[in-house]
């Protein structure tokens, strides 16, 4: 019990002190090139990083839903989505077939041994994080229909704040 109390107090401390940096992790592009996630997300506009897998139904629903409105989102806010597949070697070969079969326009990166997933403390997928100026500004795990609208609201809200500054 003592240990649990300690654990929770630690939790509280770190939660308060948590920072929003993007971990320094090398991923692979779909063609096997190495690309660091810090480099990939270093953009002027908002970047959405979505951790997903070919076997994860809610992940695919989310990316399908965003795919339907992605053109509009990009036109209005210049936001980019990077879909990071956490598929391991069992299913990773499906990724390229699936993203093409779905007709997704996202940049897709591979986290085959789950280094990024671990570093982000994501025990489940989907995990959707929103990045601006190399900082994580918001994160959400799980997907329910319509949560993509909340995400887009958030982007618009934050970008209008940015304009006021």
């Amino acid at each position, binding site marked *: 019990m*003592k*240990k*649990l109390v*300690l*654990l929770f107090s*630690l*939790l509280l401390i*770190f*939660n308060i*002190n*948590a*920072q929003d*940096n993007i*971990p*320094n992790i090398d991923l692979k592009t779909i*063609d*096997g*090139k190495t690309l660091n996630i810090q480099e990939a997300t270093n953009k002027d506009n908002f970047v959405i990083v979505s951790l997903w897998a070919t*076997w994860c*139904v809610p992940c695919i629903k989310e990316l*399908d839903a965003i795919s*339907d409105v992605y053109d509009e989102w990009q036109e209005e806010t210049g936001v980019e989505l990077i879909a990071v597949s956490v598929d*391991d*070697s*069992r*299913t990773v*070969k*499906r990724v*390229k*077939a*699936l*993203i*093409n*079969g*779905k*007709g997704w326009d996202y940049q897709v990166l591979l986290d*085959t*041994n*789950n*280094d990024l997933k*671990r*570093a*982000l*403390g*994501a*025990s*489940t997928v989907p995990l959707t994080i929103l990045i601006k100026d190399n900082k994580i500004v*918001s*994160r*959400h*795990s*799980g*997907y*329910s*229909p*319509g*949560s993509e*609208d*909340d995400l887009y609201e958030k982007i618009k809200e934050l970008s209008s704040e940015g304009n006021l500054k």
Partner: protein
Amino acid sequence: MKKIILCVAILYSGFTFAQDGGYFFGGFESNSQWLLDDKGLNFIAPEDQFRANNYFRLDYNLGKFTAGAQYETYLPAALLGYAPIYNGNNGIGTYYLNFKHKTLDITAGYFYEQFGNGLILRSFEDRQLGINNAMKGVRVIFTPLDYLNFTCIYGKTRNGFDISEGITQGIDANLDISEALKIEKIELSIGASYVSRHQSSGSNDSIPSNVNAYGGRFNFVAGNFYGGIEAIAKGPDVIANEGQISSNKLYDGTALQVDLGYAKKGLGVNATFRRLENFAFYADRLAEGNIYNQELISYTPALTKQQDYMLTNIYVYNAQPRLIIESYDQRAGEVGAQIDLYYKIKKGTALGGKYGTKIATNFSYWAGLDAEYNIENRWYEAKFIGKGPKLFRDFSLEVKKKISKKWSAVATFQNVIVDKGIVYGGPLEDEGDIEASIAVLEGTYKLESSKSIRLVLQHLWAEKDRKNWAAGVLEYNFNSRFALYVADNWNYGDTDIHYYSVGGSYSKGRTRLGVNYGRQRGGLICIGGVCRFVPENTGVTANLTVSF
């Protein structure tokens, strides 16, 4: 306890540095259950009714250095079905110090690594499966050129809060040929791996203290086509069963995997062939085939489609890499293939409708190796493909359609044949096959402001085993943060048992909490093609995750 206080002190002092550009990251995960007696299932709660697995991971980065540790507790007992070595234990499970700068990446302590497809080596963590085969030792990744890298590893494999007896060392090299030779039309890359396990054989000369494995691979992308091949040969080693050496002979092993795909916008096809012959590689020679998947070096997952629904997960495949020569059971490995096809029917066509229609289909066939066995002499001879016994055959088709702004639907059909020995463990080809057909209909209705309702109806037809099942799930999403569900799997063909459950989840920012009450259907729980057996049980479970 002292260790923890020390850790906290170190971390605390770290905060002062944190102001100078360093930062913390990590996460906390708690999975717990409260088991309850259930006469309807004939389930009697064990003495440790409350069980919890907790993981607290903290990492700190300062410039080129990153350090971290993971504290784990399995108190008062580990969740049902987890490896007994965790039960009632707690401690620092892994820790590391990493230096990363330009061409060098050095880790001391525990690390996770994968060579190629992982056939020759993969160390990873999966908390739901109770696998953490991180290696404790040193890893150096050297990238002298953009298109060339080397990874060297040396260490022992984690086994509970202990480490393996065997020492694993290895080297992996990757060369991107197209970049090296500035070829632009096609992407070509090659890789080579060497992994060796050293384990003392004591005074027994007939057991090798070193077992070496070599592998090579080749990958290409040419226009819309892509593919790869990886082959591994493992040197002579003993075979073991349940912690005992089961033959006085030595056997070598092989693994071969070939992938081929075609992808353009709107269409994707991917096919995989794999053959495994006596290809079980563990950090301890006696750990071979342990049901808790501890001390693994090689990663040989089942290459089948991971199904998504309750009833499509009753009859699943578990890969069969091992060599067994016993009078009651003979196996030499497996051979098989699978093919996936993804297709999008365009918007505005008759079948595509306003939003397009998405189709996914998969076929897989896996057989035991066609081999002749001489049980007396403990010898065997396997064909490359041959006509081995069918262990698993699966066909599935999924059609996904957004009907209107509010409505979307998914229809899935699956037909599966599986050897009973795969489903329940025990000798293969002994009790015959189970054939099942499963149909699933799922509909989602979106109400205003991210409220939605989801209904899933499922039915399974089978002549054998537990015969027919019906199942349903009803889920209501109050908003993107909060959802509740009720579900029932009803085996009306045989046992008349309802595996019901109710639950909910709340997710906000860095925190997610899920709570469920109900019955857990026993059997294989498979994630990423690796399976563990979970006994039937009833109770309340809670899962909390916080990341920071």
